[in-house]
């Protein structure tokens, strides 16, 4: 409190001091018969020189920033399209920096050169069609070049991914990312948000997940049955607000369960397999070098944006919509670490669309592995299928391929049992 008072006091005293200074200035103006609206020669010249000085210092500052920080934080791109974009970015930067220096330079120079000189009249020069045509046509040509180059890259980057490309899903929610690998069939299973349960966080669509979602919604801890029981229990005393809340909750769930039953009736069990073999991966995203990926993005709650700075890749994730972006990482994490001399370096997937308080913490480490290492990692993951996790089957990450195939056979049996 004491410091605040002192600060306040200083501010008040400062204001009084300024007021006094102003009064002195006012009086001296009156004595000298100086008129505020008539700018003296001296003031003109000082400002003209400051124009030049500022222009020079500004340019020096800009050059310093370019040299010192221009490319330092960006780093090398780790995808072929990223390098193409960097090339394009540099071309554009050269063009715009040239324009920037030219026009700003002229501005500050004219500001210096053409300051009022007593006795010299300004040139009456209202227009010149040739000049105006010149600076319409030249920018148009430069822009045409920029547009053509830009659209060429844009079209190739946003085109459809190769049929062979690895399908991968990135699922976003407040405030983390989850990856889903498509499994051996390279086909991502279908999903529907209504199927979300604790055991099925990504809401994948299979016969069993529908059943389980219906079960949870009907008989789970805060399912329809329990809500109805509570609302009908006369002995239970509730605040009106709570009751109202419970009632809306119930009507919401009744509506959702009807949709789930419809889903069940329409469901084609043949599609289950595509979802069962999907592999869900949290915390770290492992990618294989030199493989094209088609990233499919989903969101559970609000809009997020999948931003891979080093891959020069970014796409929003939108609830109710699947968005896509393709890229081919071709520099492994290890290579990049060596190149940067930073053993702690990691690629990262950031969230780049405001999504709530912890927006800034929403990230996933991305590791690009060489082909051999990736194969090893991937094989070790083979048992971590959605099916295994859904049914709670034991998942051992370090199994020999032989053991893995045994377990797969067992899983196949369970699958047929489930179907019956």
């Amino acid at each position, binding site marked *: 409190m004491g410091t605040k008072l002192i600060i306040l006091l200083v501010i008040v005293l400062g204001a009084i001091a300024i007021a006094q200074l102003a009064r002195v200035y006012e009086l001296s103006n009156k004595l000298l018969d100086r008129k505020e609206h008539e700018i003296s020669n001296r003031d003109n010249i000082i400002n003209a020189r400051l124009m030049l000085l500022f222009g020079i210092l500004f340019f020096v500052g800009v050059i310093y920033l370019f040299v010192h920080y221009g490319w330092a934080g960006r780093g090398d791109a780790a995808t072929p399209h990223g390098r193409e974009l960097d090339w394009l970015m540099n071309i554009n930067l050269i063009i715009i920096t040239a324009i920037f220096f030219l026009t700003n330079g002229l501005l500050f120079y004219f500001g210096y050169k053409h300051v009022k000189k007593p006795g010299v009249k300004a040139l009456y020069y209202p227009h010149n069609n040739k000049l105006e045509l010149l600076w319409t046509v030249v920018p148009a040509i430069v822009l045409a070049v920029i547009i053509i180059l*830009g659209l060429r890259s844009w079209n190739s980057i946003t085109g459809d991914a190769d049929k062979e490309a690895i399908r991968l899903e990135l699922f976003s929610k407040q405030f983390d990312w989850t990856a889903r690998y498509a499994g051996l069939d390279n086909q991502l299973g279908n999903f529907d948000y209504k199927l979300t349960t604790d055991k099925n966080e990504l809401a994948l669509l299979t016969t069993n997940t529908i059943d389980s979602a219906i079960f949870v919604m009907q008989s789970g801890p805060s399912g329809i049955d329990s809500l109805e029981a509570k609302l009908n229990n006369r002995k239970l005393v509730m605040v009106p607000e709570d009751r109202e809340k419970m009632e809306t909750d119930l009507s919401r769930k009744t509506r959702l369960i009807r949709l789930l039953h419809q889903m069940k009736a329409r469901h084609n069990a043949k599609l289950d397999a595509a979802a069962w073999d999907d592999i869900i991966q949290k915390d770290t995203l492992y990618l294989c070098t030199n493989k094209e990926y088609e990233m499919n993005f989903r969101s559970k709650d609000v809009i997020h944006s999948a931003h891979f700075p080093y891959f020069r890749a*970014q796409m929003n994730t939108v609830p109710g919509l699947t968005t896509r972006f393709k890229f081919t990482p071709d520099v492994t994490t290890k290579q990049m670490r060596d190149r940067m001399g930073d053993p702690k370096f*990691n690629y990262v997937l950031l969230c780049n669309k405001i999504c709530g308080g912890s927006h800034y913490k929403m990230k996933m480490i991305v590791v690009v592995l060489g082909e051999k290492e990736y194969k090893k990692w991937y094989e070790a993951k083979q048992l971590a299928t959605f099916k295994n996790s859904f049914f709670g089957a034991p998942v051992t990450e370090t199994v020999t391929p032989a053991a893995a195939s045994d377990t797969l056979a067992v899983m196949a049996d369970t699958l047929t049992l489930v179907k019956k």
Partner: protein
Amino acid sequence: MGAVAHDAHGHHDSHAHHDDHGHHEENFVSKYIFSQDHKMISKQFLMTAIFMGFLAMLLSILFRIQLAWPGESSNFLSFFLGETWAPGGILKEDMYLGLVTIHGTIMVFFLLTGGLSGTFSNLLIPLQLGARDMASGFLNMLSYWFFFLSTIIMLVSLFVESGPAMAGWTVYPPLSALPQAVSGSGTGMTLWLVSMSIFIVSSLLGSLNYIVTVLNLRTKGMSMTKMPLTIWAFFITAVLGVLSFPVLLSAALLLLMDRLAGTSFYLSDIIVGGEMLTNHGGSPILYQHLFWFLGHPEVYIVLLPALGLSSEIISTNSRKPIFGYRAMIGSMLAIGFLSFIVWAHHMFITGMNPFLGSVFVFTTLLIAIPSAVKVFNYLTTLWKGSIVYTPAMLFAIGLVSTFITGGVTGIILADAALDIAVHDTMFVVAHFHVVMGLSAVFGMFAGVYHWFPKMYGRVMNNRLGYIHFWLTIISGYGVFFPMHFVGISGAPRRYYDYSVYGEFDTDAFNVIMDLNVIITIFAIIGSFAQLLFLFNFFYSIFRGPKAPQNPWNGTTLEWTTPVEHIHGNWPGELPTVHRWPYDYSKPGSDVDFIPQTTPMAEGEEEH
């Protein structure tokens, strides 16, 4: 027909006013509060805008402190935010987003739309056209009071228990639609939407009035091609506002319905805070289309008045006609038209069809052509001029500089392919703060210094004005130039704490953290510089030296009115216009300016 009838009516009306003038005494309320006089309304807009501008600047300093020294306790923060939002002097994550959101909203809408256009359209349209007042003084008054009401509601939202809106100034749903997603999307967001809806009403009333006045109440001889560029700028701005703000209103109303009435315009398949919503079939992208259909023209609603003011000021203080008067009008019209077909360049990576993206790349980059024309015309106007450095002139030149600097980085962002890497990074923040923030604020300062004698009959202090300008441009560039490099490093905007980079990328971490400190220091210097302005402004209102009728030797009509404000502007007949407004240093004339009211001499050629 209608126009003619209205014109006649207007003249009749204004004469009636004039005759009245001596007789009726105005009381305090009708003169200073519920005034229908355009000059008073203009001052009301300016005062409100200055207050809001300083508030928004304070908010920005609060979050800049957090960005430069994340996690460090600050007395400054705890002083303003208290224990609720800055426990122990450390800003809360949610409030960080709240500060960012309200800073953006106030700056864009309340300072640069309401403040800039509201102040100067109101002041200059009747004065420079030779009209007694706006077409409808009553609607004009309503326009201000709706504006005032909306500012009050926006201010109230800062004090709501769950915090102000926190979804960024663009308030994209679903974040803004779901109170479970962030605390500010509760009452704070409802108030934000209500405030903006009222703001839009104010803006529409104002704009319609400006358009009608410009079309109908020009004095004798004032053809459209004899209007000062300021009026052209205000006119085009008003047209843009009328065409685009209703779309924002619809976007806001649909969002309100999603929030309060359970509709699904923007919502589909959402689980938030453990609650599975039944909304299905809506599209968050629809909101973005609606928002940016206003949002992009909005950029020019902010910028065009500033460019108009600076055209006038640069010409006057270079003692030269503005170069390429018709090209200037043409390029403003072109910018205005193009601004309606570029909105989706804000949405290249939302999942919108890439082909659609290419179309918007094309239209967006086209805007660079009229913008370039304007810049070169400004440069040619300065060339071989006889520049008088009033503070207004300094700010006008500063505007040209920031317009260039911010304009060229727009070329990068408009290029969809390049946008992938810098979209939503600090690069974008840097870009629009330079091109829209600094330019428009410079334009506004230029306008205040230049037309202060017209508003208050006094002149502001030059020395303080000079210091204000130099500190402002140095700190303005000091804040926003380094920010481009933060963005090129890939740093996302609206991050509460960039030190998270330390976990995975030392190089980027160093660049971002270094620059963030520099940026914050310049921001603090810059805001102190604004205190100089504040002092100068209020001091000069009461004690500044009295201004003569035409302090800057201008040619336009506002300098033919008496210094003391009178109802109806001109004591006698309305002036008649004989020439364009830029006859500075015309050969064959003894003085270096010929007012618009001077008849053409025999044998004198038009420009």
